[in-house]
């Protein structure tokens, strides 16, 4: 019924969609983290991409550097996730919280996180060198359905990212800390007069977002490579996702993440991977000109 070329095209497009869903799901995870920290603290974190690298490098130290053989990725996650939380919480308390007491603190926080990004990039260069590193796949092999071939790696990345987002949504809607985060995001003054420790919630939010992007780093470092500068690219992508979705809108960020994942995959397939980043900038410019508030942001 269909020619061989048509069937081949169908398989290729299916591959591209799977790749787009896989990376899009990790972008969604990172977008949720970035939107969360912006929505609650109203400050933009320029070091966000470097926490992506931090997750990847921490996992690399355990798996490749120390040759951890016991337990595999579950044990790695059990060690790295609390570590990322502690780093995020500590950095917020040490570097961001003191600035929040000052005038024009939003700009000061932006400049400080920019400095932190440069510091972390340099630190990674010194500690890990400039050569690319990657992690082994969580699950090797493929799943074949007729002529269609799905890599377990892509499936696991998708499943784990979506699980991460669902766990986050559950925490936000069903726990004491989640209720406090929502209250502070909507009205910090109103929250503090009913007994919510606002400063602690800011630090916790920063820590949760660090965990989310670091988890993204662990997932994508199996598919791509990490080097000290890859945080910058991730930061740009997270920024495009946030701008397209609408600043502060978690749902918008989720839509935008999958749109961008698909866009990258299709542009890469049609024109080559290096055109993917150009497509992102075109999309960013078009968004800022045509719909500055993004897909789900509030207009003026």
């Amino acid at each position, binding site marked *: 019924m269909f020619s061989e070329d048509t069937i081949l095209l169908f398989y290729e497009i299916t591959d591209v969609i799977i790749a787009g869903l896989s990376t899009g799901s990790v972008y969604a995870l990172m977008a949720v983290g970035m939107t969360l920290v912006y929505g609650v603290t109203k400050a933009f974190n320029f070091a966000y991409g470097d926490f992506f690298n931090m997750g990847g490098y921490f996992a690399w130290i355990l798996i490749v550097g120390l040759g951890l053989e016991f337990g595999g990725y579950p044990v790695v996650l059990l060690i790295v996730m609390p570590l990322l939380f502690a780093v995020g919480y500590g950095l917020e308390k040490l570097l961001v919280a003191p600035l929040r007491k000052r005038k024009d603190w939003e700009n000061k926080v932006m400049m400080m996180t920019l400095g932190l990004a440069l510091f972390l990039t340099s630190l990674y260069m010194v500690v890990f060198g400039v050569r690319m590193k990657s992690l082994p796949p969580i699950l090797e092999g493929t799943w074949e359905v007729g002529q269609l071939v799905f890599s377990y790696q892509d499936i696991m990345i998708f499943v784990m990212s979506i699980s991460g987002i669902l766990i986050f949504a559950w925490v936000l809607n069903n726990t004491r800390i989640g209720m406090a985060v929502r*209250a502070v995001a909507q009205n910090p003054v109103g929250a503090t007069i*009913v007994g919510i420790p606002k400063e602690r919630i800011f630090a916790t939010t920063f820590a949760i977002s660090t965990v989310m992007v670091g988890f993204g780093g662990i997932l994508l470092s199996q598919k791509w490579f990490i080097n000290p500068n890859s945080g910058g690219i991730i930061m740009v992508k997270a920024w495009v996702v946030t701008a397209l979705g609408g600043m502060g809108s978690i749902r918008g960020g989720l839509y935008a993440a999958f749109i961008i994942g698909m866009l990258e995959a299709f542009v890469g397939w049609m024109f080559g991977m290096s055109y993917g980043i150009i497509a992102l900038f075109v999309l960013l410019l078009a968004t800022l000109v045509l719909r500055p508030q993004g897909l789900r942001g509030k207009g003026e």
Partner: protein
Amino acid sequence: MLTLTNVTKKFGELVAVNDLSFKVEDGQIFGIAGPNGAGKSTVYNLITGFYPYEGRIEFNGRDLSGMPPYKIAKAGIARTFQIPQIFPSLTVEKSISVGSRFGSRDGLDEDHVAEIIRFVELSEEKNQKTGHLNLLGKKKLMIGAALATKPRMLMLDEPMAGSNANEIKALMDLIRRINGEMGLTIIIIEHFMKVLTELTEKLLIIESGAMICCDLPEVATSDKRVIESYIGDAYVER
């Protein structure tokens, strides 16, 4: 219950509160009035820990200086703002339960939350998003969230602002019930002198951050200095 002793607050060169001392007794409804910019809301912000200050503020013998707002809420002082501070995407029930869960020393008490919702007459709206409430509803909600923290004292900042005559009557009734039925001490900042003279047992008048008078409402409103600096002759003649 609450004692301010020689409290001063400066913002740069501006003295917002100037060597202010007064005392609020247990179970009292205490009024604060004065012209715009007199420092009334600043006094509230000092008591509830939003700004540091010179002097001493004590609540039930406990020094409040250096305590952050959330700890002061837990210590039993609840407050509202002139502009309702609500959580727009939470329901009325959830918003009030935030107060119970975080502000009360006993933690979340669902029976108490249900009782507060009935008390502030928001039962019909309990599943509505708070952003959809009218102004009176938002004010009742803010009072409800404050009451859910199980406070010993409630501080209301211009609760009647922007309200019509019927809403003022409803809010005055609610304030009387909070004081009478719950036994809470109440401090109220208000511009409507009629509201203050009808509700309060003691009235503090301040101007430029300093006390002009602190006395029974009928004495305070007939004080020559208060008439000259704040309420004018028109109120007295009426």
